[in-house]
């Protein structure tokens, strides 16, 4: 590939000529606009950026980005993107997926991409419902949820996407919200800069089949008491005037929320996204209750670990370094290796 010519791009450059066909009012519009606006910051030429998606409402995303893109099949985007990323380390490969696509039909590919640390930026639009198939419960729907396929209420316990990603030891894990453009862009920026798999859950509102799923996190009257905004290096406090805080109670395994007034300042956990043991970020991921109280957003975890791509490329480079012959000469040597005999 030729070296990119430095041209200052704008959000408009990332808009494709395709008509966007999500339902009016869908949270996906806000995410699309935020990403189109944010992409120029990365200074990656459009032609080196690829969006790969699976199936579902969110997976239409690549059609609307004026980059390279593939709208693939249900659940398989991480697998397809793995082949692309490993074979083309010069590209910036993004996966756009949803809660059904990533966690149900494609759960296996997601966890394996994360444990391998493939250099993919994986954006999971979580609306806790199947939208494209018109309203069945999803693997992140709450227990008892009444939907078309669960008239008596869902009997399944949901996945916590971040806990799952952390269980797979993802090297970067974050969460953000569709309606908070500034925060969304800040998390994506950190994800884009991360070498290896970056997993970002984006709470996204489906105004048709699951409207208001994350309303408490958005409503100005509740959000400050519900949301924990994680800042690396800062004590974890939230609520009006830092009314609440997160502590690690002695004798316990996890983290808990307390009234800030009831604890000594040194007891408040200082957020460190670089903790090697995923148990810390996992404990953060367990804080929210069923009513979404105590929902952390931001970068939970960002640790350095060699990407799968870099290890594969290093092995190739090491093997090629010893080569002095042309490919044809190498091939002739390979074909004639082992026990041979000649007939005259």
């Amino acid at each position, binding site marked *: 590939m030729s070296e990119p010519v430095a041209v200052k791009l704008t959000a408009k450059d990332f808009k494709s000529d395709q008509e966007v066909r999500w339902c009016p009012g869908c949270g996906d519009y806000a995410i699309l606009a935020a990403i189109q606006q944010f992409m120029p910051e990365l200074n990656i030429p459009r032609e080196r950026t690829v969006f790969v998606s699976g199936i579902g409402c969110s997976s239409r995303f690549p059609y609307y980005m004026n980059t390279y893109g593939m709208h693939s*099949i249900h659940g398989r985007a991480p697998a397809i993107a793995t082949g*692309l990323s490993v074979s*083309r380390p010069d590209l910036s490969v993004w996966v756009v997926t949803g809660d059904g696509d990533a966690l149900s039909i494609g759960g296996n*590919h997601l966890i394996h991409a994360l444990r391998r640390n493939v250099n993919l930026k994986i954006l999971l639009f979580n609306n806790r419902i199947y939208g494209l198939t018109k309203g069945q419960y999803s693997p992140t729907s709450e227990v008892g949820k009444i939907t078309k396929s669960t008239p008596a209420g869902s009997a399944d316990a949901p996945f916590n996407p971040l806990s799952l990603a952390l269980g797979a030891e993802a090297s970067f894990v974050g969460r953000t919200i569709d309606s908070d453009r500034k925060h969304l862009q800040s998390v994506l920026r950190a994800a884009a800069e991360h070498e290896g798999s970056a997993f970002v859950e984006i709470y996204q509102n489906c105004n048709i089949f699951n409207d208001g799923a994350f309303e408490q996190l958005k409503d100005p009257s509740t959000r400050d008491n519900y949301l924990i905004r994680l800042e690396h290096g800062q004590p974890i406090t939230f609520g009006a005037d830092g009314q609440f805080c997160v502590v690690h109670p002695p004798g316990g395994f996890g983290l808990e929320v307390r009234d800030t007034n009831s604890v000594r300042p040194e007891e408040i956990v200082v957020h460190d996204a670089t903790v090697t043991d995923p148990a810390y970020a996992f404990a953060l991921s367990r804080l929210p209750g069923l009513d979404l109280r105590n929902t952390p957003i931001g970068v939970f975890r960002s640790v350095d670990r060699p990407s799968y791509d870099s290890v594969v490329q290093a092995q190739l480079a090491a093997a090629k370094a010893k080569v002095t012959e042309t490919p044809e000469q190498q091939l002739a040597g390979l074909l*004639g290796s082992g026990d041979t005999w000649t007939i005259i």
Partner: protein
Amino acid sequence: MTKQIRQLDRVVIRFAGDSGDGMQLTGDRFTSETAQLGNDISTLPNFPAEIRAPAGTLPGVSSFQVHFADYDILTPGDAPNVLVAMNPAALKANLADLPRGADIIVNTDEFTKRNLAKVGYQTSPLDDDSLAGYVVHPVALTSMTVGALAAHQVSKKDAERSKNMFALGLLSWMYSRPYESTLRFLERKFAARPELVAANVAAFKAGWNFGETTEDFAVRYEVKPAKMKPGTYRNITGNAALSLGLVAAGVRSGLPVFLGAYPITPASDILHELSKHKRFGVITVQAEDEIAAVGAALGASYGGSLGVTTTSGPGVALKSETISLAVALELPLVIVDVQRAGPSTGMPTKTEQADLNMALYGRHGEAPVAVIAPRSPSDCFFAALEAARIALTYRTPVILLSDNYVANGSEPWLLPDVESLPDLRVEFATKPNGDDGTTFLPYLRDPETLARPWAIPGTAGLEHRIGGLEKADKTGDISYDPANHDFMVRTRAARIETIPVPDIEVEDPDGDARVLVLGWGSTYGPIGAACRGVRQRGLSIAQAHLRHLAPMPANLGEVLRSYDKVVIPEMNLGQLAHVIRARYLVDAISYNQVRGLPFTAAELETTLEEVLKNV
């Protein structure tokens, strides 16, 4: 003592023993020695799926059959002339395949009461007259090996394990094989443990010397070299040849080969082999499952690699949806199906060719792909190149239907000159192809190949989106237009149907045959051998063999209609015959066998003679 030397034109030897007795290795070495001598060879390994079934039991028997001759041969042989039976189970499991008069070399040390009881022998077959029709050579293989290694610094267990080399030494003496390559092999294999090199070499020589001195083996045999085309040869299995063919396709196309694979018998050896060739830029990813394996291969193809996935039938079933996506995306993809006996897990180490229907039709929607099948172990090399050629030129998935018989069988391979291999270079799209000079139309086709441009990410100005949704002709935009869908479905069918493939050739040395035998894939050898047998009896018969199953050769219909009868032998219940009847309205006679083993030439010969009687 002076031994009589007798000339033979061909011999079939079967080495049989417990899974842990090293029979595959023994057979492999004997084959290599035989190759060095210049005989034509064909081999048939036959082993259980269990890695180590309980010792001494029938399910644990592993065997390796080698057929060698002073003329060109087509099969590993119907019936062994010599059976080496390392234990009672090996004798019992293989006896039925032996013709009367065959030689049986038995390891008497293993014929203990306990081992005999394990396989249901009330009395030892060596002591009663149940083997009266055979020439039995009782040899205390284990104890003689241990005795020969008494002075060696190896454990008793390691000494006993060298008994396969004693057997190899004996057989090498018996058939006058050159053994230098085996000695070199042992030095390589046990390089880290010189005491084992010495022990194995000593066991081999003890076996050789035993043959020379014992009176039980009065005759030594020779099989003269076969008249083969001049050139350099190596003995090669189908899986090895197929792997090399994929490496060659990478070299000849200038593209990196990317293999996505999940371990599955009998295809895993291709993954093992390709993972060794990183210096060629070959990337292998052992994926989390079959679906991810093909997905990664398709992703790599999208990025400009030659994407390949290797598997067996159950894996192809899982990959089906992604292959359909590749049909819609019109990207190159090679899917290797090393067929095994199904359905489900079936018999994973046994052969079958029952995935033809799946290869041709096993996808949702109208999703045509190209399908080709190799006819012999060494042909797997050329079939891999041909699969890559079609995939790259026509931007389509290609299914390559190998099977366990060709994958694990071996034969001498006349090494090709690299420069003579097909030129597979492709051109990626580099600039807009629309009339206005600025628009890129990802589905604007080459009028000759009907292939769409391959515009890989990283190419400035050609940014575009593709996907599984139906695409408008030329622009590739999402389209639900009825006429467009009809057009695209027909175009995708035409894309495959119009791929030019070589005409099918008919072998009819007498020129007056009225019956044609049509086969595909690995049945080439047995069918060919059966036709030779029929002709030796003064009858005429024609043979034709399909390499391209989709699309089929343009002249096939005409060829089929020019014979009174067409016989189609297959290791399935008539899948090709069904296609032939449907496509060409030819009332083909289907002859089928699904025992997990290749056809014997004899059974085919009998069948063909029956057909000939009624013409």
